[in-house]
């Protein structure tokens, strides 16, 4: 049995419930690299207005994915307006002058396609998966809403309630989701990673049409976007269409860089979350660098050794041997715009103590700091990265997501090509070194969910009633 990775659901907020497999694909992203033997290379074009276009020809099946990525996420928000990027993502389906409300999804669907969108800390992306001969329709619609969005007060009033329902579903009524939110709020004091992508209730209520319009005008411009198309397309014939549709959109102002950075953490931060829940849940987040650091490759392999597959250290020790956890894992994504968290989580087995589980996590970290991993473990991790890359190419959607994310966080898709050499060069000593350097007590934030008995209901509980026939 594999660990339940429900946690991952918390990273991306989409307009509508997406298949879990896509979300997992999005954040477990072992990053890919290109092995020459398989699949085709992305072709890059820069339009006259600065928009980057990445096209990948995959003639395997007559389908394609069209994705437009904007470099805007919750990191581009200000205090008091947390959740603005995600709210704007929802409003992007409310219509333009040319394609009024409801038209977008209806047109895509009647042409056999599926559309959705998602928002993270770093980016907002829109996609259509459809038959390859319908790609132009998706492009026409995306080009249209890049500049022509009509923001309407009554639509905002309704959609605000929808987003609040989404927050209730993912955070208020989900103990693990609530812990993740608190962990980031504790680990980041000044940087916008402090607040959740979905936003706080108060901020959602305070948002105005002007806020949304300003955000749209600032970030939804071709020079702040990347168009990715992967599937059974021909770049030669598609490019003129793309130019025709997108080049008339004027270049926008360059968005100002985010000024607020997070200073070094000096001392462990620790908190409890007490609420109605079945079992305790432990999370530890360590502040680590992103793709801009050479150490990111060793950190990625470290993540793999700790948590990828049932033979990994955390599963073997905490779940299999000690039986203290129902599920355990570590997550690190180097494809983040600003330095993120290398975090650990453990779902505590009924009857077990969270302190014991936390101690077991510390023990695994100390082991790696004391002794480097074995050559066999290192090779396994490298093999997993390589195989994952090939499997990822099996899905146009995943492939496009990877390119879009790499581009949107500022790594650039070409950097993906270098990952393979960098990953292959990681040594067991490197892993030990990064474990010692980053997985330290002073650099961590530890959050524990402590279940408390539910509030006594005011009415009779669990009533089974027979209705009138």
């Amino acid at each position, binding site marked *: 049995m594999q660990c339940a990775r429900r946690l991952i659901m918390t990273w991306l907020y989409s307009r509508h419930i997406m298949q879990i497999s896509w979300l997992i694909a999005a954040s477990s992203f072992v990053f890919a690299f290109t092995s020459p033997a398989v699949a085709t290379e992305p072709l890059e074009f820069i339009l006259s207005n600065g928009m980057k276009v990445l096209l990948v020809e995959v003639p395997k099946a007559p389908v394609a994915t069209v994705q437009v990525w904007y470099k805007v996420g919750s990191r581009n928000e200000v205090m008091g307006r947390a959740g603005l990027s995600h709210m704007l993502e929802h409003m992007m389906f409310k219509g333009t002058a040319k394609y009024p409300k409801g038209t977008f999804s209806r047109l895509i669907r*009647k042409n056999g396609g599926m559309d959705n969108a998602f928002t993270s800390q770093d980016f907002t992306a829109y996609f259509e998966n459809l*038959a390859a001969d319908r790609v132009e329709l998706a492009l026409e619609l995306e080009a249209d809403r890049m500049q022509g969005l009509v923001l309407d007060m009554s639509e905002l009033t309704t959609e605000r309630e929808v987003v609040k329902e989404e927050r209730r579903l993912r955070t208020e009524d989900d103990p693990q989701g609530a812990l993740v939110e608190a962990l980031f709020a504790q680990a980041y004091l000044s940087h916008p990673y402090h607040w959740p992508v979905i936003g706080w209730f108060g901020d959602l209520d305070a948002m105005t049409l002007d806020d949304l319009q300003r955000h749209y005008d600032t970030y939804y411009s071709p020079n702040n976007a990347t168009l990715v198309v992967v599937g059974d397309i021909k770049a030669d014939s598609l490019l003129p269409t793309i130019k025709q549709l997108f080049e008339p959109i004027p270049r926008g102002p360059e968005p100002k860089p985010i000024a607020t950075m997070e200073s070094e953490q000096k001392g462990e931060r620790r908190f409890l979350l007490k609420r109605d829940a079945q079992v305790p849940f432990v999370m530890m987040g360590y502040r680590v660098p992103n793709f801009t650091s050479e150490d990111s490759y060793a950190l990625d392999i470290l993540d793999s050794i700790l948590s990828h597959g049932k033979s990994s250290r955390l599963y073997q020790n905490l779940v299999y041997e000690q039986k203290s956890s129902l599920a355990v894992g570590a997550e690190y994504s180097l494809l983040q715009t600003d330095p993120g968290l290398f975090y650990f989580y453990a779902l505590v087995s009924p009857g077990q103590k969270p302190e014991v589980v936390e101690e077991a996590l510390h023990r695994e970290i100390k082991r790696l700091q004391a002794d480097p991993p074995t050559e066999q473990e290192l090779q396994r991790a490298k093999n997993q990265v390589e195989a994952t890359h090939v499997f990822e190419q099996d899905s146009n959607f995943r492939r496009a997501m990877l390119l879009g994310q790499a581009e949107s966080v500022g790594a650039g898709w070409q950097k993906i090509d270098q990952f393979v050499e960098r990953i292959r060069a990681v040594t067991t000593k490197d892993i030990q070194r990064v474990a010692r350097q980053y997985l330290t007590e002073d650099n961590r934030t530890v959050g524990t969910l402590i279940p408390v008995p539910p509030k006594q209901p005011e009415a009779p509980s669990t009533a089974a*009633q*027979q209705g009138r026939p």
Partner: protein
Amino acid sequence: MPTARRLPIAPRPQALPTLVIGFCAFLLASGPSVAAEIAPTKFVTANGITVLVLEQHFLPIVEIHALIKTGSAQDPPDKAGLANLVASLLDEGTTTRTSKQQAEQIDFVGGALEAKASEDFTTASARVLKKDIDLGFTLLADMLQHPAFYKQEFERIRTQLLGEMASDNDDPGHIAMKAFNQLVFHGHPYRWPVNGTEETLNKITLADVQAFYGREYSPSQVILTIVGDITLEQATALVQTHLGTWKKGTATARNTKKPSPVERRTVQLIEKDLTQSTIVLGHGGLPRTHPDFYSVTVMNYILGAGGFSSRLMDSIRDKQGLAYGIMSHFDARLMPGSFWVNLQTKTETTNQAITGVLSEIKSIRDAPVSDQELAEAKSFLMGSFPLRFDSTAKLAQVLAQVEFYGLGFEYFSEYPKWIDRVTKEDVQRVAKQYLDPKRYALVVVGNLAKAKVKH
């Protein structure tokens, strides 16, 4: 906020503004009808395994997917969870490999090995790079033929499953579906969760596990689907080498009892301190092989399965802002499955949401759907057909199920035609036949004192 049901405004072709480029043509066309060209080779081995092979040489990967024709529907009444426990133990040790060795071998090549039970069937699969195809077959064949069912692994996995059951109670959607199935499938094995209940799982002994495996797992019960960068000859030889000596079993009696319909409105309210009510409303459905399946698919798309094109989404979310997600489902199984609508809404709007759902169920029965709704539903279902098997793993799963349900491989070329022939009259007829706004099961999980459920 508009309150009346708005007229569908998706542009008909003539309403479209002039487009910059010439794709008016495909908007004017009757819609995409991409029939998939998927033609696997099928053969049956001497010991009775049904083998499906589909060569796909685009990427150096292979998916080996075994479907075993047994699932929780074959669990003894007091031992729900048995089929799932057996499946969960397939990768927890064989006669020649420990659990850890199995994990180490598949992890070392970056592959995946999985086993999973559902109601009607169990699947065990291996995904590997082409160069590791022999290892993939070795590990999968080993877990199918030689699971060891070590006592300590049995105890450990059972404890793990019990722990997961406890943890699942943090998920209101899970609690609601568990209660709903017990109401809709009363007296039928479909009523229990696939992983059983605390009570039934505790009754299962190691001897039960061994007996179930011995009875249910044999070559003639297996559909083995191989998709990927492999030739038919290679696949045939690998099947022979790794599974050729698996002894033929004797046919086992199947539980084919049909669930009985929900006879009256039944309401179950479950208290949980939450800010939202989780609502599930529905009743019995139809089997996968029923000829009405395709008409029901079109009807259900219009009602609530069609994403932002569906009536439920339009009314409950877009017009009233009551929910983030709302969807209707027909889960068509080997035996008649179920129909349900599920959503979450803030406690205060529980009754409003339930009323809204019932009103949409009534309205699709009472009046024919519009020409546009019908055309768009059919157009989506036909056009999106190839997206359902756009990865190797999905393709293997779909192939195996087409064989399991006996749909015939013409399914891949004929599906668009089966959808296309559905009429407005069919949609209303199946709405009347398979939807019931009076006799249904309703489950609400949430803060009951505040929700004040009236239904």
